[in-house]
């Protein structure tokens, strides 16, 4: 089915199941430990043995020698696979860092060997017996240095993405009020709970990978190209994931080594990448340096806005476009948004939850706060005054459906914004300095083609199969809700089978496109199935209705079960009309913080997000998504940083004790409000994603609240006590 034009009224506008808060249908399995994660699939292949990964001790250079003898003769060892004995594998086309093979080292903890043994402990002990020597090369590990060099030597910029509208420079120079500030954000790790893990088994030339992956079809294609085998001979299965956040958009070395090891050992092999390797072996979010310039008139009307972002990556890698949201957020006829990429020899940087936009808001939304203060204006009123009519970076593009102003107004009312004191450092409760902050949020609403197969059995039960994944987001539930709604059955009568590459190819989970795209695919398959049912019954497909397990047309009624078994498959695709629109999701974010006047410790007392993301398919699971994203944004604002050792070229704090994500005690109350909106441009369900919207803005709201509490502006994230006390007034 092709979505060619915005729809009018659909069955979802009178929905009984879609749009209602519904507990996760996989919840009981999750909470009782019965939902098996990749490493726990003990029953899928018998005789499983264990692989243990060895990571490179250098960041750049090559392996000079590897002594594998001791490891090979250690107790229980079945096979040792070494980079020096393996030709470089094929490229995955999704990543730039090579996953395995050959002596070249391009980043720290790159996999150089895998030991396979009867037990995990034997594999680990034997891995420690491998002796490797290296020829170390000099590398470039400092983003600030490459960016500094790029200022005079443009060849240091290896790629750029620049959008200009009007003449920013002249308009900025002429503006009565100007802001020109630079913000830095550090490298960040996905740090999801479930590490990368795979069980691999061969049957002849056919390979099965039980793994943990967000994008099944991409993973299958990548494995085919890495192992240079036909993708028809590869099956990926990933029904449950313990988080991904973009880190599992790609197959990682656990899958590759499990496949190689299973072949070498002649047994199914399971590998979980050790936690300590994940930070340097896998991908991470780029650090950024961002410069924001805003020129406005005395009343706050923005004339010129520029947001430029620099990041670094391995040769051939992607950038982190921190300027992306600034193309859409504020009116300002003369604007410039740009992302520049330099080269670094750190591990590969790649997509992490709201790539670009998550760190981008930490710059633009603080700059707006700084502008409001300079103007003596309320920061909410400043934003509302500069609400654009069409896309500021390309005014011929319309917004599909946008209610940012309403988000701000509803949020201000609900949060008690009127009680905020605009002068910083004026609210004191004992030793605590208290302040409030606000930020707007924008995240593009992507939509991807997505397919599904929907079947009715002889009992009238519906089953859905698609390679869509549920990475903890609630996909199982919204897909079941969609199918139940379309086929007129109860939620309990729908079963959902996800994450298997034998099922129709879906959009997968990424870029907050999963919910809107995968449900549209299920809808397409249901429409086809309904047509087949009516055909079988001889009903008019236009007038037939499906409800309560029955199908009605004029005066005739038959049970849906009478149509079974019947199965339909379809894929939803999209017409070019969407190119005329900017499809986005919008939010206002509020935070109240207390900062210890002595120590600079920050505690978040309250957070609120007001979201405009079209139809909310399941408010309960959507709320969980936004809450989790707000927590992650709090981490980006206050604690999370991969610390770079610029001599050895690696992230030093590569474990969960050193890479600090927020804990419950950091944050008091969190609230989420969804505006009741519908976006008919994006898809027939008129729904958009929220999982990344929730991380776009809260960090800036926290930073602004810290400023309001203390009068200290830290533009170098994360905002830690050492940076705060350096600027806070003396207390002794």
């Amino acid at each position: 089915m092709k979505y060619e034009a915005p729809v009018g009224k659909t069955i979802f506008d009178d929905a009984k199941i879609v749009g209602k808060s519904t507990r996760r249908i996989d919840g009981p399995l999750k909470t009782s430990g019965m939902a098996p994660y990749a490493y726990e699939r003990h029953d899928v292949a018998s005789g499983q043995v264990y692989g243990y990964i060895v990571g490179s001790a250098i960041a750049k250079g090559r392996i000079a020698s590897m002594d594998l003898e001791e490891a090979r003769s250690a107790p229980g060892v079945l096979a040792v696979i070494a980079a020096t004995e393996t030709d470089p594998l094929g490229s995955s086309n999704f990543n730039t860092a090579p996953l395995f093979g050959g002596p070249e080292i391009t980043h720290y903890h790159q996999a150089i060997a895998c030991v396979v043994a009867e037990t995990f402990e034997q594999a680990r002990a034997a891995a420690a017996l491998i002796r490797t020597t290296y020829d170390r090369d000099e590398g470039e590990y400092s983003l600030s240095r490459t960016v500094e060099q790029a200022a005079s030597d443009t060849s240091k910029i290896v790629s750029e993405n620049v959008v200009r509208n009007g003449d920013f420079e002249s308009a900025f120079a002429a503006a009565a009020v100007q802001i020109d500030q630079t913000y830095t954000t550090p490298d960040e790790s996905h740090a999801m709970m479930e590490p990368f893990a795979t069980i691999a088994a061969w049957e002849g030339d056919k390979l099965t990978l039980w793994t943990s992956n967000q994008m099944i079809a991409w993973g299958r294609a990548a494995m085919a190209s890495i192992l240079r085998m036909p993708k028809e001979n590869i099956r990926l299965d990933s029904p449950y994931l313990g988080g991904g956040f973009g880190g599992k958009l790609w197959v990682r070395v656990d899958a590759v080594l499990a496949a190689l090891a299973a072949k070498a050992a002649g047994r199914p092999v399971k590998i979980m990448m050790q936690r300590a390797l994940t930070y340097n072996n896998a991908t991470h979010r780029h650090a950024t340096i961002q410069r924001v310039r805003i020129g406005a008139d005395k009343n706050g009307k923005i004339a010129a806005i520029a947001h430029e972002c620099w990041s670094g990556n391995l040769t051939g890698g992607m950038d982190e476009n921190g300027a992306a949201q600034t193309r859409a957020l504020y009116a300002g006829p003369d604007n410039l948004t740009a992302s520049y990429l330099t080269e670094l020899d750190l591990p590969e940087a790649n997509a992490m939850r709201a790539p670009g936009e998550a760190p981008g808001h930490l710059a633009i939304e603080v700059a707006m706060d700084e502008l409001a203060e300079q103007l003596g204006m309320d920061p909410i009123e400043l934003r509302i005054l500069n609400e654009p009519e069409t896309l500021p970076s390309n005014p011929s593009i319309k917004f599909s459906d946008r209610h940012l102003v309403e988000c701000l107004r509803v949020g201000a009312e609900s949060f008690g914004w009127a009680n905020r004191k605009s002068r910083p450092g004026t609210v004191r409760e004992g030793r605590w300095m208290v302040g409030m902050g606000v930020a707007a949020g924008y995240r593009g609403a992507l939509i991807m083609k997505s397919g599904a197969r929907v079947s009715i059995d002889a009992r009238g039960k519906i089953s859905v199969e698609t390679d869509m994944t549920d990475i903890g987001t609630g996909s199982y539930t919204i897909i079941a809700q969609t199918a139940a709604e379309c086929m007129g059955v109860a939620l309990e009568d729908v079963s959902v089978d996800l994450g298997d590459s034998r099922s129709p190819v879906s959009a997968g989970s990424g870029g907050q496109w999963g919910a809107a795209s995968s449900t549209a695919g299920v809808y397409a398959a249901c429409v086809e199935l309904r047509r087949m049912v009516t055909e079988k019954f001889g009903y008019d497909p236009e007038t037939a209705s499906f409800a309560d397990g029955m199908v009605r047309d004029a005066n005739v009624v038959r049970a849906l079960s009478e149509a079974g078994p019947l199965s339909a498959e379809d894929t939803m695709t999209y017409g070019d009309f969407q190119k005329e629109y900017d499809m986005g999701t919008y939010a206002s974010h509020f935070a109240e913080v207390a900062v210890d006047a002595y120590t600079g410790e920050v505690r978040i007392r309250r957070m609120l997000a007001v979201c405009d993301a079209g139809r909310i398919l399941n408010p309960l699971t959507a709320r969980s998504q936004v809450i989790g994203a707000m927590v992650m944004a709090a981490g980006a604002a206050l604690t999370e940083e991969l610390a770079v050792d610029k001599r050895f070229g690696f992230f030093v704090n590569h474990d969960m004790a050193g890479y600090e994500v927020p804990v419950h005690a950091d944050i008091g109350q969190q609230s989420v409000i969804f505006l009741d909106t519908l976006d008919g441009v994006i898809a027939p369900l008129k729904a958009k994603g929220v999982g990344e919207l929730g991380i776009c803005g809260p960090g800036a709201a926290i930073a602004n609240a810290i400023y309001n509490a203390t009068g200290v502006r830290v533009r170098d994230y994360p905002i830690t006590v050492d940076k705060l006390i350096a600027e806070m007034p003396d207390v002794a």
Partner: protein
Amino acid sequence: MRSFTYERATSPQQAAAIVAERKGAKFLAGGTNLLDLMKLEIETPTHLVDVQDLDLDMIEETAEGGLRIGALVSNTALSADPRVMRDYAVLSRAVQAGASGQLRNKATTGGNLLQRTRCPYFYDTNMPCNKRSPGSGCAASAGYSRQLGVVGISEDCIATYPGDMAVALAVLDAVVETIRPDGTSRSIPLGDFHLLWGDTPDKETVLEHGELITGVVLPKPPGGQHYYHKVRDRASYAFALVSVAAVLQPDGTGRVAFGGVAPRPWRKDEADAALTQGAKAVVEQAFAGSATRDDNKYKIALAERTLAGILAEARS
């Protein structure tokens, strides 16, 4: 992890004797630190002597009016003991500020004193580290040292003693009691228990091989107001950037110790003596001779501000 043998000790002296006999032997208590380090092959004992069956899990009153805390008393039990909460609140608070509920259930008083540093390079066996492999160098000294020591450190090692409990024990003038393989016992003032790194950062305490901690003795209650303020990057489940333990009397005199800054809980008589003159004077005394790096020099200002907060609270 290297393979090892394991046995359960039946008496303190027997435990000490077995460990003394075998070069690669170590005591195992809660295992929350030792087992982690064994998995990484930072510790490679060949024989473990599990002390959990020993009768060392009581908190008893001493004839002097203090308390004797058995070496196997868990952190949870210690911090929840009504006598500790009433008379030694600084200790109860310090223990509660450490690790997590699950870890405190397993962690013992003896093991806690001996927990090893959290220097990130110590944990990465690819990196040079004089503490882990003597003579290999110190990767932290010119590297990422935001968490590391600023006083009492050496050229060869800038790591800290990371724990919380011992910082409170330091202000309480606690004494560590041990039994040696020959059956003799000794009492070691807490201030003398941890060594400064000097040029042998692999040697961390005065204990001899095979010497077993049997308990920690608290002198009679010091009275006064008790404070433990641990500053860290998140509100729980993180090691201290700086912590301050203080016992303050109504006349403004008292005792103070700092955690997260040095190879041992950092306490100086001169610093105690300066308490009536305010936080700045105390910190000047306590941190005399400090050696900071760009990324950890904030610790001295933070120590001062943290203490200033405590002194302000004491006045109010």
